[in-house]
């Protein structure tokens, strides 16, 4: 807290870092957001300040308890305890969204993003926070980055922006895509 306002720290939140080093996606009041890898709900609460509703998906029980506390205080956060790699389990709960935000520590991050793209409206956005070290610690981060970009392009997404989040987060990259109109 600083002068009564909640501080959005770029060293702690990757989305904040993206706004520092790049352009990102503007968060508007009518937006519906699907947030994969919500963790303790820190970034979630910042996003929820700007948009209509955030569907926050998290798998691990321990951070989920914190996320539930966040949801109890914010009417527009819907906590979903599920595995982001299995969207069919939470599909009956989530509507079409304008923005898919993904920050998960999994090896197959591109595949998870593509599977969840079914929820994104035509013309909607995907922000993929790529944790290169979670994909494969033996590979060079730049190589993982390129492979992921290729996978997203091959699936027909339009890559708008791709930046490394240094100096705020090491070996992390942000990829912003749009889903083309069908």
């Amino acid at each position: 807290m600083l002068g009564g306002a909640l501080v959005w720290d770029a060293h702690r939140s990757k989305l904040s870092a993206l706004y520092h080093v790049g352009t990102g996606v503007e968060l508007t009041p009518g937006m519906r957001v699907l947030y994969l890898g919500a963790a303790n709900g820190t970034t979630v609460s910042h996003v929820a300040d700007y948009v209509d509703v955030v569907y926050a998906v998290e798998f691990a029980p321990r951070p989920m308890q914190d996320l539930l506390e966040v949801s109890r205080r914010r009417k527009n956060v819907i906590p979903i305890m599920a595995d982001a790699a299995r969207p069919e389990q939470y599909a009956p709960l989530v509507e079409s969204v304008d923005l898919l935000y993904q920050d998960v520590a999994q090896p197959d991050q591109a595949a998870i993003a593509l599977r969840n793209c079914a929820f994104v409206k035509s013309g909607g956005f995907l922000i993929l926070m790529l944790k290169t070290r979670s994909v494969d610690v033996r590979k060079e981060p730049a190589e993982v980055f390129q492979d992921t970009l290729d996978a997203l392009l091959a699936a027909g997404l339009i890559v708008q922006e791709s930046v490394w989040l240094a100096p705020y987060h090491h070996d992390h990259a942000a990829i912003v895509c749009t889903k083309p109109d069908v």
Partner: protein
Amino acid sequence: MQSYWFGDVDDERCSPFDGDVNSCVDRIRSISASMDTFIPLDWKQSVLCRTCRDRADYIARLQAVCIAAAERSIREHYSGKDAELLQMVRTLDEFDTVINLLSERVTDWYITRHPTFSRKYRRTPAHVLVKTMREKSRGALGRVAGEIEHLTDTRTVLAKEVSARANEVMPNTSALIGGLVAARLLSHAGGLLELSRLPASAIQVIGARTALFAHLKTKSPSPKHGVIFQHRRVHNAPKEVRGKVARVLAGKLAIAARLDYFRGVAVPEFLNPAQERIDAVGKERES
């Protein structure tokens, strides 16, 4: 037909789901969509369904159901028999670290008061040393030494409880490698289900992470054993067969962990031949 949390929608017709929050939790856990034929949910259908009045009502109801569902999942996660053992063994290992750090620090402190003191060539066990320091020191130093003794006592009690709990939660694994080491395997794997899903080759090197990644990244040799080295079967084995003992033991542990997860009782038909096999390998010598 598409099933959503508030009801089933078929073309424009909707059959609402009536029930309280709890039965709605049951519902969302049982339904799942096929992603190929999936039609994204439209909240307005819930109004057609007469489940919700407007958007605010829709979000409020959905949030209540999702919070209840998550609370139930969290409760279930912590109700497993392995959940508490996991915390117990991690606390135990933390105790060891703290006791060692404090003992070293207190010894350094003690030396400034007794500059001629040295442990070299003396076979004084650590706990005797701490006791001496407590008795011979006044003020805070003596109290800190007393605190270390206290921690050591608690550690002993905790170790016994960990061992007993491990025998109960993972009887087969504990029979092969002892309760303490079995519990440490569980702690590294993250749970009994996770341990039972690991291949034997992974169990063999649990706890040797640094050596394993050094091996994967460079040309250094692969680690032969991780936490399983702590068991006498592995560290007492002659050096030339130690790797083999570790490998055979890990193979049997992988089976034991699965028996523990799926049956939960000791299985003598498996344990007796397994014990014999591991002992036989330990006695082998390359001629």
